[in-house]
């Protein structure tokens, strides 16, 4: 068994470790925008650096090595995105931080207000619905919601993924 990564794979491993560090650096640059844009920028930067590394590294490139490196980079990006999105958009985690930030016990209603930083659950619902409407999955009209054909297809896909991953 050969445990040593190829040159491109070694570069990909290094860049995978560098991705969170790059995101930390980008967080200090205001021009990089919000969380989502910053993550996209970080991912594109890492991919560009990988392409440069593949061209600049000495010796002949092997397809297996480059492909393996791409898989490793994509793995690191997905892993980082899962953690990043939990921090940025995690509902349960933010409920906890809102309760701790309040500094005193809260009733359910007070907790909802603290979570929404003065807003209510209606504002939260509208924010989540904006995603569904924006993605063309749902149409909101006359105070009612109706799924589009795309929404129905996505819902079927979600059920399939839930079933095949054992979530029921």
């Amino acid at each position: 068994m050969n445990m040593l990564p190829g040159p491109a794979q070694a570069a990909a491993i290094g860049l995978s470790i560098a991705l969170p560090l790059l995101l930390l650096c980008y967080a200090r640059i205001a021009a990089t925008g919000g969380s989502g844009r910053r993550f996209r920028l970080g991912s594109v930067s890492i991919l560009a650096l990988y392409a440069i590394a593949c061209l600049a590294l000495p010796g002949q490139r092997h397809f297996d090595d480059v492909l393996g490196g791409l898989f490793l980079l994509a793995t690191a990006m997905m892993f980082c995105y899962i953690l990043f999105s939990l921090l940025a958009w995690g509902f349960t985690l933010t409920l906890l931080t809102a309760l701790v930030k309040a500094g005193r016990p809260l009733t359910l209603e007070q907790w909802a207000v603290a979570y929404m930083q003065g807003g209510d659950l209606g504002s939260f619902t509208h924010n989540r619905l904006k995603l569904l409407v924006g993605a063309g999955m749902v149409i909101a009209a006359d105070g009612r919601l109706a799924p589009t054909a795309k929404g129905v297809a996505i819902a079927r896909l979600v059920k399939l993924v839930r079933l095949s991953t054992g979530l029921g």
Partner: protein
Amino acid sequence: MSFFIGFLAAVTFALLSPALQVMARTRGWSLGAVTLLAIAAILTHGLGVMLGILVVPQFQYWDAASIFGFCVMGYVFAFGAVYKSVSLEILLSVVDRPERRAPLSEIIERQVPDLFQGRIRNLVDGGLVEPVDSGFAPTAAGRKMAGRVGQLRRAFGIGDTSLYDFSE
């Protein structure tokens, strides 16, 4: 051939993981869904490496690990997307109705508060929050976790609202 072994291990993971989730539910195991995913990943990775050593004369570990990591992380990504997404819960609730329409007021007044209470139950069950009189307060573990989350959010320049920013 090493890539094929890695892919085979990933397929085994995709079969073992849902089986573990279903077994945990039916037998009342106290292990969380993410822990079960980690167990399945470690087991199948180990099996893949052993198979590679036995079957492939020049087994390239990183070739196998790269495709295994990519497929498993893709699985975890899909799993995470459908596991507890508020937006998808709303979409499914609309699609599952016979008339495929839902009043917005009902979602705001009934479904989202139910989701809110469900997440609070998760926090209480996880020992991060405890009921106090008629309200809720964070436990020492909850405060510790919230502190760490706050540090990470500050470091990565992430806000603490968990709302989607559609201006990006």
